[in-house]
């Protein structure tokens, strides 16, 4: 689904603290599969994820989405691709405090201009899928970590994206909640979504849900 060719990513390019977080990545993310990125801290997993999810552009190299080169597209188009194609689950969940669970879920759909009624119905169905229907009006800061993550998952799904991107999804969860997360992951994978995640967690890496494991070190792929 996504192909990367000789991707390099530099931070603070041209300055004294220039740092190459990715140093030549060639990778193809298969469609409708679960791909996990692993590797030591600082190896470039998150950086790679931001490039796969069109949150950032590579310093060098090409990104192809469904065969189309998108590395040169202006920001506006990237945003639209990101909105239509990817749903994000962040490590810190990044929900907006002060808003209710359901308000958070519908946020990514605002720029699409879909009617509010349809959005709320869809959000309600998504929350029900993860057993959160009863908490829909609760302010997100009152929710537990596991509940917050499930709200984040619903938010990632509101625009019906082809792919889900999750950075360290189990880092803030205990074993039981991590298990539940894997359960949700499995059902999403079964429905044919492409999933890309990073993880340190053996529970995730060794689970049956994961189809492809990519190992990074010093900004390079060492094993696939």
């Amino acid at each position, binding site marked *: 689904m996504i192909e990367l060719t000789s991707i390099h990513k530099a931070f603070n390019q041209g300055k004294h603290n220039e740092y190459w977080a990715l140093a030549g990545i060639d990778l193809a993310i298969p469609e409708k599969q679960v791909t996990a990125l692993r590797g030591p801290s600082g190896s470039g997993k998150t950086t790679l994820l931001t490039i796969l999810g069109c*949150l950032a552009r590579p310093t060098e190299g090409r990104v192809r989405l469904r065969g189309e080169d998108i590395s040169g597209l202006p920001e506006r188009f990237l945003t639209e691709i990101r909105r239509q194609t990817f749903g994000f689950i962040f490590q810190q969940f990044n929900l907006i405090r002060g808003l209710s669970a359901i308000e958070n879920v519908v*946020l990514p759909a605002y*720029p699409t201009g879909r009617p509010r009624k349809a959005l709320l119905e869809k959000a309600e169905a998504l929350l029900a899928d993860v057993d959160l229907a009863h908490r829909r009006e609760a302010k997100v800061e009152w929710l537990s970590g596991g509940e917050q993550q499930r709200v984040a998952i619903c938010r990632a799904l509101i625009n019906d994206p082809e792919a889900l991107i999750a950075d360290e999804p189990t880092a803030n969860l205990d074993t039981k909640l991590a298990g539940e997360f894997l359960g949700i992951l499995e059902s999403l994978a079964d429905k044919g979504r492409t999933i890309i995640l990073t993880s340190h967690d053996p529970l995730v890496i060794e689970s049956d849900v994961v189809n492809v494991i990519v190992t990074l070190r010093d900004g390079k792929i060492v094993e696939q």
Partner: protein
Amino acid sequence: MLMKIWIEKQKHLIDFTLASLARRKGKNLGLLFIYGLLVFVLASVALYTHALRTEAQKVLAGTPEIVLQRLVAGRHDLIPPGYIEKIGRIRGVQKKEGRLWGYYYDSVVKANYTFMAPRDMKVERGEIIVGPALERSRGLATGNGISFRSYSGELHTFIVADVLPQSSELVSADLVLMHEEDFRAFFKYPDGHYTDVAMSVANPQEIRNVALKLMDALPDSRPILRDEVLRTYASVFDWREGIMLALLSAAILAFGIFAWEKAAGLSAEEKREIGILKAIGWETGDVIKMKFWEGLLISLLAFLLGYVAAYLHVFHFNSLLFEPVLKGWAVLYPRFTLTPHIDGLQVATMFFFTVFPYTAAVLVPIWRAATTDPDTVMRS
């Protein structure tokens, strides 16, 4: 179809904006209060000076082009019999007539009235027509009797025949109109003497010439031109406006600082939210539009509240809060209610100078925050 999506999108943005505003209730209410207060001060000044100007124009519209006074030893003195005739014919003067008026201090309510024997209005002997200020301060109504003690000590009693309409308080508030004979009797004015002479000149270009000829014919006279009065009024207003302007600039300065602080002080939380919105698919433009609605809603509301409060303040509470600055008028006109008047251009100007800079000031830092790369949220 595109239009529908656009409208739906704006509705979403406004929804989100309202929710955002509600989330930071304390902060936004504070903002609204300060902002509204500033609009209130600015609008009060604007409404007040404008109404005062309109009022002054009304006053002057009814006065003659030239008023001739006689001076004795540099002091204003009565016009003796035969004086008017001495003027003779001067080209351009349409009408000249002696006027009878004077001031009377009413010790009961500690106010000055203007007594006058009108030429263009008939008042029966023993009757008076009073201005609205008297109607209020002395509780007079048509048919009531009232006594004034003259400067010679005698008591004169009059029946109130009518009360003047309230069209312009500045002109008529303190007037007491009476018959010429009553006037002369009350002030012991000798027969044939007048207070001054009013002249009407049709062609404004001729006024100066007429004044020069008057000075030639009557060296002891002093012609007072309406244009000069107008200029005096203008300078009085200018002086007052100067103070008001100082107030105004202070307010604008405060406003600037306040807007700047609000602008510079984009909280970490707000920045984080902007990052999140961008990461989940909001365009830079969407974020800016949302914040634009936020700024616009606050400033619109503040403008409305401030303006309405200012309107009430100026026209219903007699500019209560400005009293120290505007004392002069307050002494002259104990209860001086301005005619309500709203000027469209003025509202537009005020609107532009308050709503626009605020919205702009708020948008700059938002724009900066909104154009940062969305990948930063991955690392918060």
